[in-house]
């Protein structure tokens, strides 16, 4: 258990800046998830921390100590990858014990350490098997066990759940989080899956094109995305983002094709008016912050049902409003057919407005 401090880290590959002046503090025993799309620079950043890449600038410190001079093995960080890289001829027990065998540990101490880890991962019954006899989820647990057995400073994980099927991934998400809490160790975890990030992280750092976009508690980031990238990347279904402008005189959002107009409270007006740009905006609203009614309510906008997506516990309605599509979450008991005209009204406390030029949230 240790803290990790990343300061002004930059890594270039030729003219391509993979990691651009990243600052990130990972506290002792914290579960921090680095989230971003493919090519964002997540893995490069993680490899710089591990010592597998040499950054072009900046420092990494563990418990306040700069580790630049340390080789990967000296850093005492455990690395878990997508591929499990288990030894096929060794049993599960031997695979987990392997990192300890190079150390001067007694057989009894090794056995105790393997047993402790196996218990925590619920794989005690598998210790005599070989990797080929294990399912993907079990193999992943063994790989974790091998990382856990030696009590490193911190765990670095690079999309470890990617190769598992959907069901197993959901199960392992909740297991990994439990294990981190039980171990009480520092986890630095990289993924492109926003569900993994939201559900596991104490804090998440969103990375795009090598630059940190936002760092925060998942629910905070979900509710207050700082820019368009974060707004669009986090949440499923994706946040509705629609081009619009703002008429300050009437305090009204106007669709860029003038397909709809939405009056907003004065507090909102003041925030938008304070920015100089009122012509090139994006209106953002999450699917759960829109409600549908069959009668034209007040303060809403009309739309027609384009596609209905029942998911069981909820139904997503895709509504055509002007030239755009709004996704709206409704309870499964709400059933209207394709083509039907409906009224969309918004929870105005929870709408977002972004400046299309700077990409930053205005509110």
């Amino acid at each position: 258990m240790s803290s990790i401090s990343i300061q002004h880290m930059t890594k270039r590959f030729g003219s391509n800046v993979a990691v651009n002046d990243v600052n990130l503090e990972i506290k002792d025993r914290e579960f921090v998830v680095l989230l971003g799309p493919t090519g964002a620079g997540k893995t490069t950043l993680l490899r710089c921390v591990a010592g597998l890449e040499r950054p072009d600038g900046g420092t990494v410190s563990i418990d306040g100590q700069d580790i630049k001079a340390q080789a990967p093995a000296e850093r005492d960080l455990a690395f878990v990858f997508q591929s499990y890289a288990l030894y096929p001829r060794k049993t599960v027990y031997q695979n987990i014990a392997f990192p300890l065998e190079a150390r001067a540990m007694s057989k009894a101490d090794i056995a105790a350490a393997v047993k402790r880890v196996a218990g925590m991962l619920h794989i005690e019954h598998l210790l005599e098997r070989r990797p080929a006899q294990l399912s993907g989820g079990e193999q992943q647990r063994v790989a974790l066990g091998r990382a856990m057995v030696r009590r490193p400073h911190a765990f670095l994980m690079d999309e470890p759940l990617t190769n598992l099927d959907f069901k197993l991934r959901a199960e392992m998400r909740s297991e990994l989080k439990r294990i981190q809490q039980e171990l009480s160790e520092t986890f630095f975890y990289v993924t492109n899956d926003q569900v993994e990030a939201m559900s596991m992280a104490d804090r998440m750092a969103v990375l795009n094109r090598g630059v940190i976009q936002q760092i925060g508690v998942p629910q905070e980031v979900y509710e207050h995305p700082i820019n368009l990238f974060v707004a669009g990347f986090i949440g499923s279904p994706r946040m509705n983002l629609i081009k619009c402008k703002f008429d300050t005189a009437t305090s009204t959002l106007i669709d860029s094709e003038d397909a709809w107009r939405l009056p907003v409270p004065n507090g909102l007006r003041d925030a938008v008016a304070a920015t100089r740009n009122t012509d090139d905006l994006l209106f953002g609203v999450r699917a759960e912050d829109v409600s549908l009614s069959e009668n034209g309510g007040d303060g809403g906008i009309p739309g027609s049902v384009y596609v209905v997506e029942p998911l069981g516990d909820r139904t997503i309605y895709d509504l055509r409003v002007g030239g755009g599509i709004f996704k709206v979450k409704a309870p499964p008991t709400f059933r209207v057919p394709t083509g039907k005209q409906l009224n969309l009204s918004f929870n105005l406390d929870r709408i977002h407005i972004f400046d299309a030029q700077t990409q930053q949230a205005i509110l």
Partner: protein
Amino acid sequence: MMAQIKLKDIVKRFPNGALAVASLNLDIADGEFLVLLGPSGCGKTTTLRSIAGLERQTSGDIFIGERLVNDLPAGLRDIAFVFQFYALYPHMSAYDNIAFPLRATQISTAEVDQRVQSVAQKLRIEHLLKRRPNRLASGEQQRVALGRAMVRQPQVFLMDEPLTNLDASLRADMRVELKHLQSDLGVTMVYVTHDQVEAMSMGQRIAVMNLGVLQQVGAPLDIYERPQTLFVAGFIGNPPMTLIPVELDESNTLRAEGIAIPVPPALTDRVRTHQRGAELVLGIRAEDSSISAQEGVLSGCVRTVEPLGDETIYTIEVGSTLFRTSTSPTIRHAVGAPVKISFNTDRIHLFDAHTQQRVM
């Protein structure tokens, strides 16, 4: 032309003896969007390939329209088979990619042009026709690929996990477009996937398969609300249904370690008429249970909390059972905290532990 599909007693056995499809009967209506859903190895792709004529079933009959097609080669079945959506020819414009399937035919240039334009209009890609694939966004590439499948005007589309390799947000967009397009064109669609979200959101009906056996066919919400087998119950829904082996005792109570759930006598009467033994599996969906610090029928403690933004999933440990329950993000309980679980007994599911079938 009517393009209903009828599968009658289809059996497919591979040369090594493995049974891929076991006596499958399925009627797909003209203009229907039917999804074949199941885990890998369940026989769904084999079934689709048999309809396409790419596999020959070991026994049984396949009808497309009124026609028995057992002996009809794939090329003459008037179907479009789509594996994945982005195998476009990189050196050809979007226009030429879409026109490609018509080039080898006797169709006149004017007719080809008219068909390409009509397809492009439906897909809203008229303005992109001159571009090459590398100048298209991936969503646009998908539409071009879809256009290429549409241009032959087949009456039946067969699709095998076409969205698998797309990133999550593009996949969500394509789901919507495909569903809209299918109803717009009025074609018959048979769509294979292992992704229950795709199946639920796109299918008019879903046929769930496992180990070569058809488990259930029905509208998405009917399957979700009344799964007929344990397999379907566990496979459909996210987070998965909590499934607990229980016994129904003489005092109308469902029991497991640390669990005692009283059920109304009417319900137990119904269970007993369907059921000889006492071993049952109780199923509860995450959204049909709720947690609170004080009130509930079961006591447990919070094992993990997974905030997802619009809801939070709690895993609660009760005895040796892990319950999943979904709550509003405003409800907060800490890991390790004792909580009570309550649920709506109208919405519980019970299965016979031996036959795996729904008992009520």
